[in-house]
């Protein structure tokens, strides 16, 4: 079967993904290429006896290689094998979109131009003469609408036709001054019978654009000796004519002039102002200097509520299902060790991952809505001023706020940040926002040491304190590890659009599935490790001696004994031994080995800190934060300064295992995990020490 490989290229926000969804319809076959941050997606489908492979490249405004997305697209177009470029443009903003098209036209590749969003253009009274546009530029033109699903088949026929055609004659015309120089260089190349895979005219254009690869190739050719002075002269002439020595600027101006000419000939716009002012009307409210931020905070509050209130309903079902499932499986396994591994290790570990699915789904829907409606860039506009002071980006706000609920979706939502350094910095800061799972620990300690009246304020202070430490840490990191020039903040504020439900569904589905697949395997493995460390080695002698004692006493005493057994077993387990071993490290903070072990258990999941403390202080397994018995025991057994230091550590130290795994995945390497470990450990230790000493002084 014939194959056509298409590179899908366009500026951001022209509906490339929507188009790819519409053409491939239900036969979607999505595979992900591994990239550090930006993934290009390949979609395969069949049409008219051809096997199409469409590579969805990240949107790029110009054919440059500054940002990661631009680099992915640039490198793909320059270095990979493909049959033709499908250049998608927005019918309602041709002038801007054709800038990229003009650049692509100098690449000597076959191009099909897809003018997307024709439905919107019609509604706005914009008429485009596609035929004439095609005649003027030499580009095959398809007018399509991904949303209304019009013109899609014609576009594919055009792609097949272009693929079959031997050569494409593109007509990109420059100003007289530039054309003159192009002709001179081309004539020189022709005269020396220079032949390459691309036309001599395009070589001339590339030389004038100072395209590195062309230079490199020609530099090794003997004709270079005479070509070089020719180029110097041409460059001088062009600079003089444009009054600029920046060749990129010169070409941008040239392309714009060309595009304006084309548009003047082919586009008839009537009442374009009506729809546009719609966006401006909405903007007048949403980015209002005074009301803009409160409105945004309200939206965030709503999303937050939805994520953690509505999300908690199915979470209960999932939790219930896994404990039922665990019991069911457990009862069918006779070997105690295997049963413990399967039930306490694997099932509860995987259950913990699946548990977050409702949160993640709701949050992803929210983020997809924010992004696809065009509101996200308004948020960055509103908040960039504040966040920039701390070296963060305006869009960091969303992951940071999400971090107050759960770090896992927060790490994943950091993907909204397009710049790698901003994203990494945000990832490192998210942990400072106290997640929901740490709440029980705070409630326990606040209740143990403060009156009910003050406990609420203490909780609030803990949360705010964490956030402030996080912002301070961001500032410090920005001045040290993430040093460098600030990423310029120049961002398109797209038109407001109603979100396409199908696309949102698709995005959410893919992301959720990836979360399950990636995090699930790792977390399952890691929770098995933690299970192993806290259950081994077995001590049969100890168990046997307790078993005989338990038998000989009454039911009440037996439960106390069982707890003591648990404590002793935990104490002699690998985890307990590690706790004992590192106890001296925690002595300066006023912790005993029990607190040290509880902290380590918290590495598995923060909620476990409370239940571990319960076990260690021999109260029984079923303790929660409101347990007044535990509160009493804690206020009696733990000195106040140690408790303060303990809270500080809980606020700052490494996020739970599941979150750490997601962090490592999102940051793009295990080394980042060690950086995070070092950062959180050092900050937590130093601040806890300071807090301990200060409280000792005061109390």
């Amino acid at each position, binding site marked *: 079967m014939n194959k056509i490989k298409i590179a899908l290229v366009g500026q951001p926000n022209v509906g490339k993904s929507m188009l790819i969804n519409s053409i491939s319809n239900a036969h979607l076959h999505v595979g992900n290429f591994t990239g550090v941050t930006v993934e290009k997606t390949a979609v395969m489908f069949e049409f008219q006896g051809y096997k199409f492979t469409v590579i969805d490249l990240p949107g790029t*405004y*110009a054919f*440059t290689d*500054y*940002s990661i997305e631009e680099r992915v697209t640039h490198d793909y177009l320059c270095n990979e094998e493909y049959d033709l470029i499908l250049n998608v443009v927005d019918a*309602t*903003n041709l*002038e*801007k979109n054709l*800038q*990229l098209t003009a650049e692509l036209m100098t690449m000597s590749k076959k191009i099909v131009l897809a003018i997307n969003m024709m439905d919107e253009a019609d509604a706005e009274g914009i008429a485009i003469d596609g035929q004439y546009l095609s005649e003027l530029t030499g580009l095959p033109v398809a007018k399509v609408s991904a949303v209304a699903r019009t013109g899609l088949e014609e576009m594919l026929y055009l792609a097949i036709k272009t693929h079959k055609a031997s050569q494409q004659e593109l007509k990109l015309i420059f100003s007289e001054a530039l054309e003159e120089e192009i002709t001179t260089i081309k004539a020189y190349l022709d005269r020396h019978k220079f032949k390459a895979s691309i036309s001599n005219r395009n070589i001339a254009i590339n030389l004038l654009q100072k395209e590195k690869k062309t230079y490199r190739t020609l530099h090794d050719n003997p004709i270079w000796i005479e070509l070089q002075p020719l180029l110097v002269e041409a460059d001088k002439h062009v600079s003089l004519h444009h009054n*600029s020595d*920046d060749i*990129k*600027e010169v070409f*941008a*101006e040239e392309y*714009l002039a060309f595009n304006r000419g084309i548009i003047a000939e082919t586009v008839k716009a009537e009442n*374009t102002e009506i729809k*546009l002012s719609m*966006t*401006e009307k909405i*903007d*007048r409210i949403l*980015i209002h*200097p*005074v009301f*803009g*931020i409160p409105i945004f905070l309200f939206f965030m509050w709503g999303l937050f509520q939805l994520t953690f209130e509505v999300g908690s309903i199915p979470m209960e079902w999932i939790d219930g299902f896994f404990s039922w499932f665990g019991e069911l499986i457990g009862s069918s396994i006779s070997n105690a060790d295997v049963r413990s591994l399967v039930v306490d290790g694997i099932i509860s570990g995987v259950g913990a991952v699946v548990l977050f699915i409702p949160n993640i789904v709701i949050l992803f829907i929210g983020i997809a809505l924010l992004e696809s409606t065009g509101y996200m*860039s308004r948020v*960055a*506009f*509103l908040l*960039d*001023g*504040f966040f*920039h002071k701390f070296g963060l980006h*305006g869009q960091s706000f969303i992951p940071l706020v999400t971090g107050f609920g759960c770090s896992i979706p927060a790490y994943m939502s950091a993907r909204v940040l397009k710049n790698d350094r901003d994203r990494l910095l945000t990832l490192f800061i998210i942990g400072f926002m106290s997640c929901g799972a740490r709440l029980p620990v705070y409630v326990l300690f606040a209740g143990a040491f403060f009156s009910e009246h003050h406990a609420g304020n203490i909780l609030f202070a803990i949360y705010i304190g964490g956030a402030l430490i996080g912002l301070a840490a961001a500032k410090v990191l920005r001045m040290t590890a993430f040093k460098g020039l*600030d990423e*310029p*903040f*120049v*961002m*398109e*504020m*797209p038109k407001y659009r109603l979100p396409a439900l199908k696309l949102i569904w698709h995005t959410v589905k893919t992301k959720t599935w990836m979360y399950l697949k990636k995090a699930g395997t790792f977390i399952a493995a890691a929770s098995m490790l933690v299970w192993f460390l806290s259950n081994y080695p077995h001590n049969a002698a100890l168990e046997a001696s307790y078993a005989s004692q338990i038998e000989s006493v009454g039911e009440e005493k037996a439960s106390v004994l069982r707890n003591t057994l648990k404590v002793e077993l935990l104490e002699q387990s690998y985890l307990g031994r590690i706790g004992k071993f590192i106890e001296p490290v925690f002595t300066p903070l006023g912790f005993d080995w029990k607190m040290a072990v509880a902290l380590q258990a918290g590495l598995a999941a923060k909620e476990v800190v409370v239940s571990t403390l319960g076990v260690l202080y021999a109260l029984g397994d079923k303790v929660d934060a409101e347990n007044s018995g535990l509160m009493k025991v804690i206020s009696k057994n733990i000195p106040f300064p140690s408790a303060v230091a303990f809270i500080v550590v809980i606020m700052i130290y490494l996020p739970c295992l599941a979150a750490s795994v997601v962090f490592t995945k999102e940051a793009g390497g295990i080394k980042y995990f060690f950086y995070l470990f070092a950062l959180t450990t050092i900050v937590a230790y130093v601040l806890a020490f300071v807090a301990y000493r200060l409280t000792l002084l005061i109390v």
Partner: protein
Amino acid sequence: MKKLTECKKGSSCTVIKLHASGPLKQRLLSFGMMKGVRIELLEYSATKSTVEIKVGKMRIALRKEEAELIEVEINE
């Protein structure tokens, strides 16, 4: 010499010169900001740290530091 940030909200101006360089200049150019192009000033954020402008049909948000690198002439 007037900077873009000296324009009032709701006014319009014409670009005289871009004083930016490197990636920032490239980004500005790819957004259609080059000499002779008309810019409309739509909105400032509360602390004037960011500004929203309109170039052609495109609305663009800029940080103050970047906007100051655009030399303009205010239109009557």
